[in-house]
């Protein structure tokens, strides 16, 4: 088993975790990327040889496992600088372009309370309704985007993460009509010219497909927390909603929290502590 093939498979493993399908793993190869993959703990899969010399994939033992991932957002804990850092970390590490038109791509951004929580305005509340809120995909437990997708390019993983297969999406944008939170973006054009500084550890997308926050599935696969949570200075707490002992559940036990449009039955998994 040549080194080249092993390297290739490691990369293929990353791409499989990103939902890209193993057969197209080669598309991820980019200068410098192989060096990063050299460190086994940075790949989602380890590869071991079985008796007949065939390769069997073994998940990275450090991968974080959860029954249903969720995020708690504590807007009070943010400073303008950490909020900006959280957004920018996601944009950089996911090669999210910045397009100065109404055909922009957004994974995570800040919006006023009245926009993030329309129809639950409370003019008397002051205070928490005067802030801007972090907005991202809610990784709904009953995701309408998954329900409508005609190709299963958008799918819900067993751990609750709603993912996209950029290589299967036909760009019909049904999922964008279905998402009640405006969390999805369509690549109206080739996004690459609009990426200020390209990060080689994550694939760029092509024109014609939809994308959104992936709850950093590629990070969880190597045992790390989402970029935004890491950069948030403790204002974003990521964890397993179904595990009573998780940091997330602790945060939710101590504080009141609200969710976006809970009346729609989507069961969003992003909780806002108020």
């Amino acid at each position, binding site marked *: 088993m040549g080194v080249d093939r092993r390297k290739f498979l490691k990369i293929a493993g990353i791409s499989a975790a990103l939902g890209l399908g193993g057969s197209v793993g080669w598309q991820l190869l980019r200068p410098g990327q192989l060096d990063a993959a050299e460190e086994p703990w940075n790949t989602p899969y380890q590869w071991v040889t079985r008796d007949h010399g065939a390769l069997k994939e073994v998940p990275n033992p450090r991968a974080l496992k959860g029954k249903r991932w969720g995020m708690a957002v504590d807007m009070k804990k943010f400073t303008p600088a950490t909020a900006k850092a959280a957004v920018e970390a996601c944009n950089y590490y996911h090669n999210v372009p910045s397009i100065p038109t109404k055909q922009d791509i957004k994974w995570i951004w800040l919006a006023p309370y009245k926009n993030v929580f329309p129809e639950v305005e409370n003019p008397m509340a002051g205070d928490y309704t005067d802030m801007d809120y972090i907005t991202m995909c809610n990784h709904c437990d009953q995701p309408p985007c998954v329900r*409508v997708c005609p190709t299963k390019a958008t799918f819900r993983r067993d751990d609750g993460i709603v993912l996209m297969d950029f290589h299967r999406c036909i760009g019909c944008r049904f999922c964008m*009509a279905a998402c009640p939170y405006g969390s999805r973006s369509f690549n109206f054009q080739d996004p690459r010219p609009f990426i200020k500084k390209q990060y080689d550890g994550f694939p760029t997308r092509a024109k014609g497909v939809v994308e959104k926050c992936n709850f950093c599935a590629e990070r969880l696969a190597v045992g790390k927390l989402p970029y935004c949570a890491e950069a948030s200075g403790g204002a974003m707490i990521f964890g397993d909603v179904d595990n009573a002992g998780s940091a997330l559940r602790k945060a939710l036990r101590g504080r009141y929290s609200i969710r976006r449009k809970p009346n729609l039955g989507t069961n969003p998994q992003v909780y806002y502590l108020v």
Partner: protein
Amino acid sequence: MLEKALSGSKLYWGWLVCLLILMAAGFASYLVQYNEGLVITGMSRDVSWGFYIAQFTFLVGVAASAVMLVLPYYLHHYKDFGRITILGEFLAISAVLMCILFIFVDLGKPTRILNVMLYPTPNSILFWDMIVLNGYLIINLVAGWVTLESERKQVAPPGWIKPVIYLSIPWAVSIHTVTAFLYAGLPGRGFWLTAILAPRFLASAFAAGPAVLILLGYLVKKLTNFDPGKAAFETLAKIVTYAIILHIFFFFLEVFTVFYSNIPGHMDHMKYLYFGYHGYNALVPWMWAALICGFAAIVLLVNPRTRQNTTILPIACVLVFICTWIDKGMGMIAGGFIPNPLHEITEYAPTALELLVTFGVYATGAFVLTILYKVALGVKEEEAAL
């Protein structure tokens, strides 16, 4: 039978050449879109479906309306539709063809369209829409062609065609119902989230389709020796009358629920469309024009004297067409996206290239329709000469 399309007057060939030029312009514009992406359209992150999907929705209605001829003729043996039913079936064929083209040009990754079949997903309404639309195309092709072929041979149509024709009746209803379900089941879009959407779609379709057919009938009568018959026109006009009244009635049912309940998520779209919202009002004149045309058409159609008048009827039909086309082709889709789920407003207007692609698709439909009508009328003429 197709050879009948190969001989014709100067006018016939001139018309086809005009259509071909439009088709070429549309195709060239599509190539630009194919290379650059949907960036060349007026669509946006907030209004993610636009003119293409709106035309698709409108034309599904035109296609479904063939049932308004098939049902009286085959189920109730209404003889006066004998000469014109084939025109309805052929109109349905070209309309479905345009529907499929509009879906195609709207895709971000058209080369992957087969993924819908490679990974069949029954929980997606788009999957079912693909099935019913293609099914409807095949049913109408078979039914139309076989009946015409036997008419030409002066024999009774084969027995097996009857069940196919009967099947086309519920199938026609299904295509527009399923198309309404694309929108009516989305939790966050208050404008579409209403059980009346499918009936509204059907009512406006059964007004628009027969209105188009009346206009085509007049055209055919003027340009050829073929006369669909006075009775056929009159019955079609009655169908248009009932349907446009239902269309307006259903609209007011929606208006009542939306405004009396006072729920912002449902009301704001209507406010945007008819009164403007926070200063955004691009569609307001259009929506009122549609309503006024609808009312004017009702006035002209309800009165038997004006309805039976051969100069006024076409005018009423044009009004019906404008009313239903604006309603579905402009307001229905953009209106559902404005305001967006975060209650922000991004307006939508199609770009010139988007319009060119649209004209190209319509020209393709007109081209196919011309050929099909040429064949049908050729057979009818031959029959009359015998």
